[in-house]
């Protein structure tokens, strides 16, 4: 009995050390620098069962919800809910919680765990349901993110993004790494390491691949990289420069920028590199293409009017319409997942700032007060915009909500982080 207990304990400890080690190695650290105006008070009680593993899991759930800027965590003490199915609503109402979550983690003996939780609306004294997962010890963070996603969706009314992933490039001492991490910066893994620059990573719509530009051939070449297998192929290596890949929403085509016919112009190509067609025809620079979510349009940057501005053209090419008119430098257009707004970088009095345009009214809002914003990327639920910025001369990632209220900063000690790309929903 004692032996069994100690071995269960030992395994649990090993799992926790694994999670903590991943957190320590996860070079991205997150700092919350602003929160929503009204935050929903929620109590996430410690889970019962395998207490040590449960603590690791619950801490990730709490951190996810707190980081979203939409929740305020209520002090719960360390006692698990006596009955996670039918808690004492009046007690939690007294403690100030509007919502309550409790659960358990049980070891199923073969190194796997069964995790259950339930969510409650304290004010209405009703259950908001729950889920059960069976998972391995390597999936504790993922399970925690999925629980946070459930809570977020039930209480906020839109899908959560805690179980999604982000890609970004780290530059450190002349070495470039294309890394993939959980949306909270944890669990970072390197997909590609190179002595030459890497830029413009773009997720395939199914989240299995990244297209990016690598300079390993001493010139910009577009690669498509399957993340699970590590296999990659050249999608475009024409004479001149090959850059700015963007996936069509059906995942079959890439809009790309080539210079084989002179200036940078927009083309489309099948993901395997076949079927090249030219989409833009201008005497100047056309670059940074992005498909609209419905696949009808391509947004892009062009200097055809004398300064870089944002335009839109039909996805198969054709006449372009100019969208930005304020200032003489508007670049890096990114349509929101619902297609209703456009994030981009505008230069205002020498400062490069993340800006959001409502496409129907053409009203714009500057979302940041920084000076070197680059490369915006929407979370798949459209709520947050991740972008590259600079603090103290070092590249960092920052995120801001689409109303400008919630702010986070993700940085890596002693390294430059840049070129973020937020992946799709984890299906």
């Amino acid at each position, binding site marked *: 009995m004692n032996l069994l207990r100690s071995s269960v304990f030992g395994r649990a400890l090993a799992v926790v050390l694994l999670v903590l080690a991943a957190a320590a190695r996860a070079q991205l650290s997150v700092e919350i620098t602003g929160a929503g105006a009204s935050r929903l008070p929620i109590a996430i009680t410690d889970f019962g069962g395998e207490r040590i593993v449960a603590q690791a899991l619950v801490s990730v759930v709490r951190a996810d919800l707190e980081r979203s800027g939409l929740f305020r965590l209520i002090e719960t003490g360390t006692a698990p809910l006596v009955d996670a199915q039918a808690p004492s609503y009046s007690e939690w109402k007294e403690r100030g919680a509007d919502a309550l979550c409790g659960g358990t983690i049980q070891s199923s003996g073969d190194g796997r765990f069964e995790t259950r939780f339930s969510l409650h609306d304290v004010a209405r004294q009703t259950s908001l349901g729950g889920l059960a997962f069976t998972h391995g010890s390597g999936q504790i963070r993922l399970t925690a993110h999925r629980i946070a996603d459930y809570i977020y969706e039930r209480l906020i009314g839109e899908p959560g993004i805690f179980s999604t992933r982000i890609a970004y490039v780290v530059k450190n001492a002349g070495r470039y790494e294309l890394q993939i991490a959980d949306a909270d910066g944890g669990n970072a893994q390197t997909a590609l390491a190179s002595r030459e620059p890497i830029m413009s990573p773009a997720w395939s719509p199914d989240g299995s691949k990244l297209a990016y530009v690598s300079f390993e051939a001493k010139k910009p070449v577009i690669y498509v990289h399957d993340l699970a297998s590590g296999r990659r192929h050249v999608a475009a290596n024409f004479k001149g420069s090959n850059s700015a890949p963007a996936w069509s929403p059906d995942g079959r085509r890439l809009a790309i920028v080539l210079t084989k016919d002179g*200036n940078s112009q927009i083309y489309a190509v099948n993901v395997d590199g076949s079927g090249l067609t030219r989409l833009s025809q201008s005497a100047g*620079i056309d670059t940074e293409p992005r498909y609209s979510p419905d696949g009808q349009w391509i947004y892009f940057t062009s200097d055809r009017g004398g300064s870089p501005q944002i335009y839109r053209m039909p996805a198969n090419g054709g006449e372009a319409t100019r969208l930005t008119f304020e200032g003489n430098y508007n670049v890096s257009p990114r349509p929101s997942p619902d297609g209703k707004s456009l994030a981009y970088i505008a230069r205002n009095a020498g400062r490069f700032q993340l800006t959001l345009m409502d496409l129907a009214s053409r009203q714009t809002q500057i979302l940041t007060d920084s000076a070197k914003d680059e490369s915006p990327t929407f979370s798949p639920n459209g709520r947050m915009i991740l972008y590259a910025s600079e603090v103290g001369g070092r590249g960092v990632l920052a995120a801001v909500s689409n109303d400008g209220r919630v702010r986070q900063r993700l940085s890596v000690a002693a390294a430059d982080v840049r070129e973020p790309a937020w992946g799709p929903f984890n299906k």
Partner: protein
Amino acid sequence: MMQQRLTPFAFAFVAVLGLTACSSQPPAPEQNPAGVEDRTPGAIGGATSGVPVQTVTAEPFDPMSIAALKDPRSILSKRAIYFDYDSFVVRDEFKPLIEAHARFLVANPKMRLLIQGNADERGSREYNLALGQKRADAIRRALLLLGAREEQIEAVSLGEEKPRCMEASESCWAENRRGDILYAGEY
């Protein structure tokens, strides 16, 4: 240094690019003030007994040879062309350099070169890649007008990704607004 002559190439160059005479060479190293004698013993060199003498063999210098590409006596060893802010016009001062490389490509039709355009760090990385391309392309077109052939030249951009100078200062940004010429085997 090569003698400066106005060749037919040069005429074509001036006519086509409409170059202005404005020159902003990087400042030359300051000269020693005249009239000050250096009296340190080492400066007397070979006149002092016991100081070894280096032998130099005088070899004829062929300005069109491949060896000339790396010979500091040859203008072909100069490879960097600088641009003004937001500009894609090859400045007058780089005319002799581009003429020399064009002559070399004409004389050596099997030689291939890569032009890498660069941009300073401000603004969008992809847009800066396009700006670097415009600079590389300006150099490419100048070489083509002077007789080099399309298949000898590839113009690409490194954008702001490979800055030679890392500070956020005007002089540093100027250093990074640059096109570099690299011959096959050098990249």
